[in-house]
């Protein structure tokens, strides 16, 4: 086996290496993440669970290149985001990273297809080509027939499908989902997870941040975060006490 092949097989779509993020300085400094290492590979959905304040949102904003770590590295598709600079990171966000939010974050004045096409158009693609990709992405998430609808003429579940289409349009392989089912009822939420799961099965790498065990259960791995530290992962033996965690660290 060649070195190149080995590298291709082991390169994670997302890799956090000993990532620490401190907000503020001196006595008021808050360590949101403390030496977190974490990876998501192609075809894999990883759930991150933890209570409010455990650092799970910080982890997602760092993974999305919206924030930079105080120490450690965040790599997407093998590229250290810190080495890219602001412009390069913005480009990476448009071309490689898809975000799915709890409240969908669709632009109300744009149709479903226009919302999905937007990141491609911002990236310099022609309107015609971007719309074609957008329609294909909407087909993939099962709402090709709603391409010309505006968000307020769609149900919550349909809007979240549009958001997922927007997250995967083009060649993007990293989907970061922040409580994507928080605003949906049980059954619709489950359909969204089923869809997210199928996008990962099709080759994307997904990171799902949630505090609901039922949703995290759709993932291949569940990472438990407490006080900015990964304390446990399903499928591994390592367990740290979570009650004493703060006192000993």
């Amino acid at each position, binding site marked *: 086996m060649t070195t190149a092949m080995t590298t291709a097989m082991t390169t994670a779509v997302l890799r956090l290496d000993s990532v620490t993020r401190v907000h503020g300085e001196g*006595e008021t*400094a*808050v*360590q949101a993440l*403390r030496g977190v290492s974490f990876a998501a590979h192609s075809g894999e959905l990883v759930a991150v669970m933890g*209570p*409010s*304040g455990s650092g799970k949102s910080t982890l997602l904003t760092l993974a999305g290149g919206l924030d930079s770590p105080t120490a450690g590295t965040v790599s997407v598709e093998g590229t250290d985001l810190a080495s890219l600079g602001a412009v390069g990171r913005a480009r990476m966000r448009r071309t490689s990273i898809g975000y799915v939010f709890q409240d969908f974050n669709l632009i109300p004045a744009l149709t479903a297809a226009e919302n999905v096409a937007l990141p491609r158009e911002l990236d310099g693609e022609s309107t015609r080509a971007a719309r074609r990709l957008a329609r294909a992405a909407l087909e993939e998430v099962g709402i090709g027939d709603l391409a010309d609808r505006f968000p307020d003429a769609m149900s919550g579940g349909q809007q979240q499908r549009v958001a997922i289409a927007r997250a995967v349009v083009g060649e993007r392989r990293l989907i970061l989902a922040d409580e994507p089912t928080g605003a949906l009822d049980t059954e619709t939420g*489950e*359909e969204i997870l*089923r869809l997210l*799961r199928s996008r990962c099965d099709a080759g994307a790498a997904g990171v799902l941040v949630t505090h*609901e*065990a*039922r949703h*995290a*259960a*759709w*993932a291949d791995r*569940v990472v*438990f975060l407490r*006080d*900015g530290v990964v*304390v*446990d*992962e*399903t*499928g591994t033996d390592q*367990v*740290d*006490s*979570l*009650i*004493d*965690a*703060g*006192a000993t*660290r």
Partner: protein
Amino acid sequence: MSVRQALLALLEQGPMYGYQLRAEFERRTGSTWPLNVGQVYTTLTRLERDGLVAPVTGEPGADADGHVVYGVTDAGREEVAAWFTTPVERTQPPRDELAIKLALAVTVPGVDVGTVIQQQRSATMAALQDYTRLKRGRPSSPDDPADMAWSLVLDSLVFAAEAEVRWLDHCEARLRRAQLERPARDSAAQPPAAPGVEAQTDREGARR
């Protein structure tokens, strides 16, 4: 478990023999609670003794292999109706090993409760992942009533496991808060906790 009522309810749909009853029960519950055929026949014998079922004579083809085919009696029909119209009793909580274990873990010295909780959470989460994998292999809106029945049983397991994880989260949060408040109450001379922990408590306090 109400094997007795479940078998009666199945027989209300038509006469069956033991193996058929077991197969029908498991088709609806996805073998979640496997029945052995001996248990089925013991139950049938008791039901017959109580006059709720009776061997059916002259059922076409049924006894070719020597199986005794049972049918429900009028009294049996009444029992089924009463079962469906009466809520399952909740007065006596079923014995819960986890709750008992945790109750003892917080009172017996030297037990690391945090680890007990996290190990259980991981194990329950793994079970939840297994249930979800079973669900993934299934269509989201099955048309066959027996498929739907099993899918609902699966949901019941999912919700129960989820409730357990939520309860564990809750226990952990309460124990952590209790532990953080203790040194503050006991003495002001105690060294402060790690900065991360302090900030965490402050934020939690602000939210609540």
